[in-house]
């Protein structure tokens, strides 16, 4: 058992909404208030306990322990308290109650490129940002060449950062942070910036840190990343820990909780097309109208309106995930038969013949409605949905292997007697074990 390096006990953080958060107390008000308090104290009147309950608990009674070398993902929806927790652990702000104990040098990366100055050159910013992150000049000088090589901007190292493209400055900033060598690394959602290549690089680097037996606390909305990197996930909701365990147990909870309300498509304004027909509602569910499960039948429910009743209409759908802009494309155009009679207003269900192949995570779907080959209505990210594993799913055996899609297959083995044995397995390496 590795030693505990982070020990959080009943940690809480509350903000007073009135005076601190929104700052609606003016200076004279505050002075008169303080003066009144002083005066009352002189007269022996004890200060009244604060009566206003306008405070907001960003964190409430949070306790957990992290041992050395653990990589812990912290997930939760916006406002769940993730960043507040990281801010307390990085000593940026004090907790309001409870305590956190930490052993070892902590480096926190709540933002990429904090303190970068646009007027300074790349070289100067490496030194500046490095020392803000807590490196000494000597350390920076020793790692300088590595940092520059890693960032891939050797040519521009003596150019002011304001002339950099945003991608370049992010690369440089991350490169500096990547060369920190703390015992505990605390990372907020830094992957949100930068392109796919950059994100992969970040993840790779975090993996390296993790492999070198250092402790990592990692906040992200990117479930694929959390699933790949972390062996333990803590989920926060409204400032409390609601789950703490293995990624395959906790992430589905997050996804379930995240049944993102799709906005009212009927009134949505950012849409293209001639408007002769319109999608007024859309959802993706299993056949019972509940959440889609991996490997189970699923359907797309569409509500529409059209001024061409009776004519055939065509629906196109593009499904995307956070990492891939086009996971899957589905069009009713390739269907030979279909409903012949289209009312002016109605609901249709489109059932793909293949069971849901999507790995559990969040997806978005863009919709297009066509009539006679011309686009009537097109919306990007019209609907968001998530896929879950569900109970007693054969894919549970896949463990935490993450990809976007999973295929089912027939597997045939040619036996030596030339007799044909037919077995159906999941296309998975467990097959090899069983065959052997």
């Amino acid at each position, binding site marked *: 058992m590795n030693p505990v390096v982070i*020990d959080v006990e009943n940690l809480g953080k509350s*903000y007073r909404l009135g005076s*601190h958060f929104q*700052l609606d107390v003016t*200076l004279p008000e505050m002075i008169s208030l303080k003066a009144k308090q002083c005066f009352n104290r002189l007269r022996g009147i004890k200060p009244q306990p604060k009566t206003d309950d306008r405070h907001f608990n960003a964190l409430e009674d949070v306790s957990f322990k992290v041992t050395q070398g653990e990589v812990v993902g912290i997930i939760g929806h916006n406002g769940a308290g993730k960043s507040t927790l990281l*801010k*307390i*652990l*990085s*000593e*940026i*702000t*004090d*907790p*309001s*109650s*409870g*305590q*956190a*104990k*930490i*052993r*070892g*040098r902590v480096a*926190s990366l*709540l*933002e990429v490129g*904090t*303190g970068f*100055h646009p*007027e*300074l050159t790349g070289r*100067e910013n490496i*030194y*500046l940002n490095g*020392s*803000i*992150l*807590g490196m*000494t*000049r*000597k350390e920076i000088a020793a790692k300088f060449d590595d940092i520059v090589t890693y960032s891939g901007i050797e040519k521009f190292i003596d150019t*002011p950062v304001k002339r950099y493209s945003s991608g370049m400055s992010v690369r440089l900033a991350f490169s500096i942070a990547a060369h920190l060598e703390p*015992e505990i690394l605390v990372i907020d959602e830094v992957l949100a910036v930068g392109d796919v290549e950059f994100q992969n690089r970040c993840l790779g680097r975090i993996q390296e840190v993790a492999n070198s037996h250092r402790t990592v606390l990692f906040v992200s909305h990117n479930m694929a990343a959390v699933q790949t990197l972390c062996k333990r996930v803590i989920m926060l909701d409204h400032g409390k820990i609601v789950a703490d365990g293995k990624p395959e147990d906790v992430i589905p909870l997050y996804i379930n909780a995240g049944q993102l309300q799709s906005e009212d498509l009927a009134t949505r304004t950012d849409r293209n097309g001639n408007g002769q027909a319109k999608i007024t509602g859309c959802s993706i569910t299993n056949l019972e109208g509940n959440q889609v499960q991996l490997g189970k039948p699923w359907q797309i429910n569409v509500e529409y309106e059209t001024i061409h009743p009776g004519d055939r209409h065509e629906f196109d759908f593009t499904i995307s995930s956070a990492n891939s802009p086009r996971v899957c494309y589905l069009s009713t155009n390739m269907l030979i038969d279909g409903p012949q009679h289209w009312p002016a207003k109605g609901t249709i269900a489109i059932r793909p013949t293949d069971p849901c192949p999507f790995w559990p995570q969040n997806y978005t779907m863009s919709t297009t409605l066509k009539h006679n080959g011309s686009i009537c209505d097109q919306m990007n990210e019209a609907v968001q949905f998530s896929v879950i594993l569900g109970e007693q799913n054969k894919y549970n055996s896949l463990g935490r292997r993450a990809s976007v899609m999973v295929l089912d297959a027939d597997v045939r083995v040619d036996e030596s007697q030339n007799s044909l044995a037919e077995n159906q397995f999941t296309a998975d390496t467990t097959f090899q074990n069983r065959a052997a």
Partner: protein
Amino acid sequence: MPFVTVMAREAPVLVVVTWEKTVSASQTTTQKAIADEVNPGQWKVLKPRKGLQMIDFARLWQFRELLGMLALRDVKVRYKQTALGAAWAIIQPVTMMVVMSLFFGRFAKMNEQVGSVPYPIFLYAALLPWTFFASSVTASTNSMVVNSRMLTKIFFPRLIVPFAATGTPLVDYAMAFIVLLALMVWYSVSLSWQLLLLPALVGLTIISAMGVGLILAAVTVRFRDFRYLVPFMIQVWFFITPVIYPNKMVPENWQWLIQLNPMCGIIEAFRASVLGTAINWSSLGMSTVVALVGMAIGLLYFNQAQRKFADVI
């Protein structure tokens, strides 16, 4: 101390001595504390801090290089993309001196009050420390707000920020000092041993400025009103400090009041050192005491207020 060498490249030797002075004070007391910090087995407890806080000198020492880096950043950025560059550090005080010599000295007949000393050098020798003081106070007041992004995203001892803000005024000060030397040659003022006091006076000016600057920096985090109040306050302060007039013009029974202004004794001593006249030691002593007390209050208040900075800014 590596950052001292950084400063040395940018500024004359005079400056280096002062930096060394301010930093080395904390050095001896904190050696033991650093040893503890490095040991990874040590638990660091983060919990609500109540009551009077001690200043964490060990942490300050750990981050000492950041002071130099932030100061250097401001100095480097200051005259970027200007045609005249660092010449501005000379143009401004010289122009002020010329205009003031003309209006206060000649037209308002102030030069009759200063005896045999040429009024321009009398004025400039006071304008120099005054400008340094004024811009240090202004810079440190604004420093927290200017660096607010850093405050909410990364941990480092917050005290470093207002101190680092004095870097740029200090370099400007050193530049403008060259003009003072030129003036001394022009008016053939003979050099006296008292010039050796100047580094100490610079240090004392920093201490006076930080006493005020730390409090204002901490208050500005919460009330931005002070960003507008400070320039006005500095203007008033300018007139209650003997810059354009000799201290002896102030009536005897007002002297005790005016001596409470630390810049009063410092500027008088600075001027006397340059001109080689007698130094008013009691006045300088008073200034030193006020400056040190102010600094102590400033440090304590800032240290106390910094707990809430990231939440409030």
